[in-house]
């Protein structure tokens, strides 16, 4: 059963140095507040997992949280590069970053395998690409019925998965809707799971297209209104597109980046 606690408590209870951590949310409901809390708490040597690293992993990488990144698309959507990610890969700043690179189809099937208690997933993918040459977690597999050769990828089972959702009830049942991405799979694949939510309500009335994660599938729920800002939280807030554009300039220079993080993350208290 998930406990409803503060974000600080949730993160410090489950995230440890050296952990693999998936903060998911496919371009919608991105758990920024939780990422900022990890940055403040200073866990190190993390293996960060995420299909679309986005600005929040740019921030975590630039702040030195990560030693590895497992991902499939690392850009600032609609804007350009992730400069902190590039600086880590191209120049090893603030430290070296090991990449484990997949396609979206491969990543999402790795979560599916993880959620399904299987050691691997099979897909039509990667064949003929150079990705299999640089990523050891891509291997051929032969269909035992047709002899066709397909591709296998190993399950992802993060030590911790973190998502942001619209609502929870007092029991810790969590509800999200709109674009629901791979959050269910990320949570079910993980050893521990945390959800931040916009609000707690007495009753989670059913909604079209909603995913419900039962309380017993999570460890902690923390109420963090605006916890997905500057990304979308359908029904609560729009994407702060100006910030996505502004990030390009903020993140291009190491000092500007560092100053921004101090002013907007490090020197800000955790949500209550």
């Amino acid at each position, binding site marked *: 059963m998930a406990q409803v606690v503060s974000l600080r408590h949730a993160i410090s209870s489950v995230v440890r140095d050296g952990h693999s951590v998936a903060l998911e949310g*496919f*371009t*919608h409901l991105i758990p920024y507040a939780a990422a900022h809390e990890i940055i403040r708490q200073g866990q190190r040597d993390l293996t960060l997992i995420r*299909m*679309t690293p986005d600005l929040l992993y740019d921030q975590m990488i630039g702040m030195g949280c990560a030693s590895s990144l497992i*991902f*499939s*698309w*690392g*850009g600032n*959507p*609609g804007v350009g*590069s*992730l400069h902190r*990610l*590039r600086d880590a*890969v*191209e120049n090893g700043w603030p430290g070296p970053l090991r990449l484990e*690179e*997949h*396609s*979206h*189809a491969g990543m*999402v*099937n790795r*979560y*599916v395998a993880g959620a399904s208690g299987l050691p691997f997933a099979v*897909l*039509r*993918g*990667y*064949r*003929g*690409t*150079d*990705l299999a040459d*640089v990523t050891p977690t891509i291997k051929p597999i032969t269909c035992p019925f047709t002899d*066709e*050769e*397909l591709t296998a990828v190993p399950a992802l089972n993060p030590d911790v998965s973190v998502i942001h959702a619209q609502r929870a009830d007092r029991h810790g049942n969590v509800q999200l809707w*709109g*674009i*629901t*991405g*791979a959050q*269910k*799979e990320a949570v079910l694949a993980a050893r521990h799971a945390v959800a931040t939510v916009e609000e707690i309500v007495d009753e989670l009335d059913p909604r079209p*297209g909603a*995913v419900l994660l039962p309380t017993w599938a999570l460890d902690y729920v923390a109420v963090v209104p605006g916890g997905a800002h500057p*990304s*979308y939280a*359908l029904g609560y807030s*729009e*994407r702060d*597109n100006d910030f996505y554009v502004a990030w390009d300039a903020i993140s291009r220079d190491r000092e500007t980046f560092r100053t921004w993080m101090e002013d907007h993350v490090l020197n800000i208290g955790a949500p209550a």
Partner: protein
Amino acid sequence: MTGDRGYSSDEMMTIAAARALSGARACFVGIGLPSTAANLARALHSPGIVLIYESGTIGAKPPHPPLSIGDGVLAETADTVVSVPEIFNYWLQPGRIDVGFLGAAQIDRLANINTTVIGDSYAEPKVRLPGAGGAPEIAASCREVIVVLRHSRRAFVDRVDFVTSVGFGSGPGDRERLGLRGAGPKTVITDLGILEPDPNTAELTLTHLHPGVTVDDTRAATGWDLAVADDLRETHAPEPRELDALRLLDQPA
């Protein structure tokens, strides 16, 4: 950016891309120019086209171009929203989608696409690009692929530094050998013209020039000795209604 002709080369490119969707039933759309072109096709000649975004929205009908594939307007206007595992496994992988729209940082003579790294070394790249995203499987599984990118020697190279998504591999028959079931990049649309694979060699060949562009312009912007089709044609210039619709789409919401 609007030139002497009353439209920019990017507008020509987008309109040509929208026209290429004529007849398509379902289109897998990435954000940016592909999304604009697909929504332009919907506005102009394909009101029933099913736009599928990799975030899981099937049949999205955004009144304005979404800011990202996570835009709420996609979910709110879609026929249905499914999970990301489902969109890749149930809808893309089996070959249900007629057309996949891709961009590229590099594309080569055989239409292979690079969006991963520039430079000889993956481990120490000259430029780290965003990576694969949905592209490898879009390139593999859509019945055909349209690639849209600006023409330059940096982008059009003899051989890509890294094959992120397979076009025609090392030549005819490669897709079949690899088990890729879609027909691959049948159309590459740039700001200068349109390239299509030669039916025998699969080599990208110039088949259309946009108005005012010369073969020499195009060759100068191509990193290999570009072949030109015998029946090279000129793209129809944008019609006023096409330009009007595009400019309406490009306005902020």
